[in-house]
């Protein structure tokens, strides 16, 4: 049973990493897309009109693809001030309550955005009006919301039940610590 759960957890973690990896690569592709558009326009050549939508829609996809991994790795911005001031026992309770609230919000959003997505998916005549000339179905704009919120909800829920809490009790802004550790490792490794 325990081993089975571990395998599921590893597969889920792999999936979240993949989401983050796709989000990161997407940023590289945005750079390529802009250079492609600009260069073609400069030489008066026609470029694929979907490229702009690829870039614009990308921001929503990037956010929802990468956010669950960020939650798992405590890389979102949250402030540890009160949690750094209280005793470890109180912090443990407080952190789990916060994780519960965050998970609840994400799952509520996942549910309702899923309903919105379904409604838009079933209606074949609804298009993204802001990009009317491209005939992009409206569900394309909302599909990332339920997936991203659901995965984030699951990740916040992990902090309720597992031994690891979201807050560690070190004063400051949490994501900066993650960034610092990674940058230090990279810089000291590179040079």
């Amino acid at each position, binding site marked *: 049973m325990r081993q089975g759960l571990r395998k599921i957890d590893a597969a889920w973690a792999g999936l979240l990493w993949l989401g*983050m990896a796709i*989000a*990161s690569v*997407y*940023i*590289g592709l945005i*750079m390529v897309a*802009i*250079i492609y558009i*600009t260069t073609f326009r400069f030489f008066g050549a026609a470029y694929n009109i979907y490229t*702009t939508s690829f*870039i*614009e*829609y990308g*921001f*929503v996809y*990037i*956010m929802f693809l*990468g956010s669950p991994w*960020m*939650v798992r790795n405590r*890389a*979102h*911005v*949250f*402030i*540890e*001030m009160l*949690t750094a001031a209280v005793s470890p026992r109180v912090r443990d309770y*407080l*952190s789990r309550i*916060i994780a519960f*609230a*965050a998970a609840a*919000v994400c799952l*509520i*959003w996942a549910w*309702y*955005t899923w309903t*919105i997505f379904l409604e838009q998916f079933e209606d074949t005549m609804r298009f993204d009006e*802001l990009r009317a000339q491209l005939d992009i179905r409206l569900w394309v*704009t*909302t599909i990332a*919301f339920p997936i991203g919120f659901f995965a984030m909800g699951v990740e916040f829920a992990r902090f309720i039940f597992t031994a690891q809490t*979201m807050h560690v009790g*070190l*004063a*400051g*802004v949490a*994501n*900066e610590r993650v*960034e*610092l550790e*990674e*940058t*230090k490792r*990279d*810089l000291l490794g*590179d*040079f």
Partner: protein
Amino acid sequence: MQWYWILTALLGSTLTLMFVGVPVGIAFILVNTVAAFILFGRFSGFDANMFAGISQLTDNAFANMAIFAIVPIPMFLLMGELFFHTGLAGRMFNAVENLMGRAPARLSYVTVAGGTAFATLSGSSMGSTALLGTLMVPEMTARGYKKSMSIGPILGTGGLAMLIPPSALAVLLGTLAELDIGKLLIAGIVPGLILALMYIVLIYVRTIIDPDAAPVYEVQWISWRRRGKMFFADVVPMVSVIIFVILLIMFGVATPSESAAYGSLGVILLSLIYLFLVPLLTGNMERVRAFWPEFRVALWKSMWGAGRVTIIALMILFGSSLFSNVLAASGASVKLIEWVTSFDVSGLVMLLIMFGILLLLGMFMDQLAMMLLTVPIFFPIMAGIDFGMGAERQVIWFAVIMLLAMEISFTTPPFGLLLFVMQGVAPPGTKFSEICLAAIPFMACAMLLVALILAFPPLVTWLPFLTG
């Protein structure tokens, strides 16, 4: 419900949630979902009202996020990450250190230059403080530097980083406040140079007054010829890429999005020259063979790093769009502006009040959260005040002041967040009072700069509007 109760409830509950440790983005989503449920829900039953509220917020969030104007954020971040992971930033840092020779307080100057570069490109003065505090302070302490000369410059670099383009935070502020990002980036150049000059003068004066504050120590002599070579090989090309990006924006040749993308491409091309072409031409086949594995890793790390910060910024944008949406729908933002402008106080007093609020917020939250909370309120208020310089110039001028205020708030004793970060990474035995004392002169420089900008707005507005 009166608008001021709505505003108090929105701000109060968001701040409380942030203070207890709820992730900033989630705090905004939570509060605004409840607000939207009440404001947009006109149906009977919980389910229908919730659907209406979230549907409205989702539509607005997508419309505010899926826009081309956001492109400079990930592109400038990618450019910065590429600089670091390809080793180009390290080369420049080493070259600057060597070029300094035996100058008194050389490590303080190097810290100002390196810290500014790092914080500017990474968009995180907190990350920069923590990194330099870990790497440089022990070295400087070992060389006999006093705390004021080792910790002070590190804490000061954050302010510079906010101003000197391509400042990732300036881009984010420009996006949130719907400003001309190109003009905002260029507006930071003159104040940034003035602040850098102030820091240099401050360090220099301190070494004159107290030579023991930064003792001179022996370093290996490097001939002027070699220094010149180092300057042209390791400093000029890297700086050229940044200047090239700024010039493209300044003269309207390319938009900030396009300039940033070409800047990233420029860094990739430079790294190809340094890591592949030069070793190939000099016959260093070992380096040539190592090129692809190293370059691939650098590219991957750069995209990953840019991705991580972009996702944080997008989450903030998401929260901001919900907040602006709810504020507008409740009528609170319009009423607040009417209320604020009804007072018989000068625009300057109003601006100083906003400045004070930012200083207060910086005691417990980071710049992204501060922007998220204040931009939807402060910028409409500023639009209602006339400083006699034209609306377009005025918002850019205010944005630069806001950037500086946010950074100053970070180092304001006794609660500035950077002070605590520094204490966490400084060598054991460093007293908090020493950190505060070290920060004060550099904070005073930034305050002086704000006073100069208030007295002489063209310091900010001259350059960006030079080309129309």
